[in-house]
């Protein structure tokens, strides 16, 4: 079974007339890497949640590998969820949990309940520790392995959330603003790491980004979303300044100035927040 994702005229409305995404037509092939851009409130998060089976479309059809998950039995649909990895913007890490367990939590879809419990009660198996360690190494967090999550800075938490993706090893990966708490240099490096990981596994990746330049630099396909509507879905070289200006409207100058060219104050602030070497 392939993992081609297809949306046909999909809308998600909370109440009639109040919709987060409207009539989206989209197809993403397995192994493709796509960036989702657009101003705040454009519906990027809703779109990602829809792709992750966390939200059911109120209209239209979503098909995964050719079949509609919402017509499946609940159990089959839940098994399908194990094939998609969604990383929310706020990394959902329990404060008292240690980093090693937080990363290994992504393995739960593969591991049985007993091994999960044993790993918590005594200590994770050596192979599991190594897996978590390798994932953390990719984000230069290896020395945080045995720390508790509440000892991490915001940027470190976000990268632990990304390290989970390596362990989950899902064919479909949906990352919501994965580098929002990182300084530009570290953000680009972390993005490169997840992209390389996905590419090595021929896994699909959809990433929402607020940094337009980063998106243009690292992705060959860009999807522009505004007010819940699909504005464009183009290869990166076809996305002109004109289109971006249209997408962001008056915010455009700010978006590029703020996110594209890191000014001294933001990057310094982020370094303090992330505090990583």
């Amino acid at each position, binding site marked *: 079974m392939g993992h081609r994702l297809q949306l046909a005229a999909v809308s998600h409305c909370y109440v009639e007339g109040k919709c987060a995404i409207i009539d989206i037509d989209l197809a993403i092939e397995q192994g493709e890497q796509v960036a989702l851009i657009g101003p705040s409130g454009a519906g990027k998060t809703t779109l990602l949640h829809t792709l992750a089976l966390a939200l059911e479309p109120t209209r239209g059809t979503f098909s995964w590998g050719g079949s509609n998950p919402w017509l499946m039995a609940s159990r089959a649909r*839940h098994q*399908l*969820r*194990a094939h998609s990895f969604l990383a929310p913007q706020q990394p*959902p*890490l329990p404060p*008292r*949990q240690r980093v090693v367990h937080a990363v290994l939590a992504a393995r739960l*879809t593969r591991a049985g309940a007993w091994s999960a419990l044993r790993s918590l009660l005594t200590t994770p198996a050596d192979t599991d520790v190594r897996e978590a360690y390798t994932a953390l190494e990719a984000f230069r967090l290896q020395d945080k392995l045995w720390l508790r999550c509440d000892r991490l800075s915001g940027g470190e938490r976000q990268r632990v959330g990304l390290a989970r993706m390596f362990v989950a090893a899902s064919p479909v990966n949906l990352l919501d603003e994965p580098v929002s708490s990182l300084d530009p240099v570290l953000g680009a490096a972390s993005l490169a790491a997840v992209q390389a990981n996905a590419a090595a596994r021929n896994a699909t990746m959809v990433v929402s980004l607020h940094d337009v330049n980063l998106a243009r630099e690292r992705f060959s396909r860009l999807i522009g979303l505004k007010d819940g509507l699909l504005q464009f879905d183009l290869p990166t070289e076809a996305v002109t300044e004109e289109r971006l200006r249209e997408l962001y409207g008056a915010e455009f100058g700010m978006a590029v100035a703020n996110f594209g060219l890191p000014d001294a104050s933001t990057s310094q602030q982020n370094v303090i927040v992330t505090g990583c070497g």
Partner: protein
Amino acid sequence: MNALTSNHNRLHDPVWHQRLGWTAALLLLLIPALWIVEFKPWIFFDQQSLKAGGSFIKSFWPPAHDAEFLRLLVTSTWNTIAVATAGVTLGLVIAIPAALLGNRVLSVSAIAHGRMGVLGRAVRGVVRAVLIVLRSIPELVWGLIFVRAVGLGDTAGVLAIALTFGGMMGKVFLEVFESVDRRPTLALLNNGSSRIGAFLYGTLPTCAPELASYLVFRWECAIRSSVILGFVGAGGLGQQMELSMKMLAGGEVVMFLLAFVALVSLADLVSKRLRAWMQ
């Protein structure tokens, strides 16, 4: 005229008749209540009561201290601890599955729609109802019933504590599970993990210390319950105390009372230490 009354009223407490009404109502309710409970403090001072009470108190001294009695004291004290611990352990066997089954956060059907399926709601409703029934019946009543069902002895006490405390702990565990930050659990569930996995890695780390300290606190309460259950024949210190009281053996009663107070203070101390250590 109007101005006069309003001026006059201003000096009056505007809620005085309300207060008077409440006071009167309370007094009116109090009198029949006092009558019902046969509130006659003077009966303690009539000849017969003074004699009965006096001779009982006099028999407190000297406290019983022969070797055989002391052995009984020690074994029945340990028995009380054993009944309490076994009861709480069996109570956990009820509470943990119930708290997991009744947990609304762990609903897979609620992921996408925000509300649970019919089956999920029914199961959770039944579990919660069972927990309410278990803990609304006092452990002493369970004890009375089990003494009839399984005979005098420890078993009745253990079962009584297990059911009542299972109900109480189940309810509190449920509340704790549902009150901590749900996002870690939901994220795991959303990525396809099983309910039990999402619970172990998403919910449990946040609330484990809280649960453990509540459990220790419950164990302390179970020690008290275990003594009381002895009065209906469920073994331990309470049963021996009741026998001594029936025989008006004050010297034994006073020793049992001292042992009980010491045990409760010890449990209190252990519980405080453990909880401080866990925080």
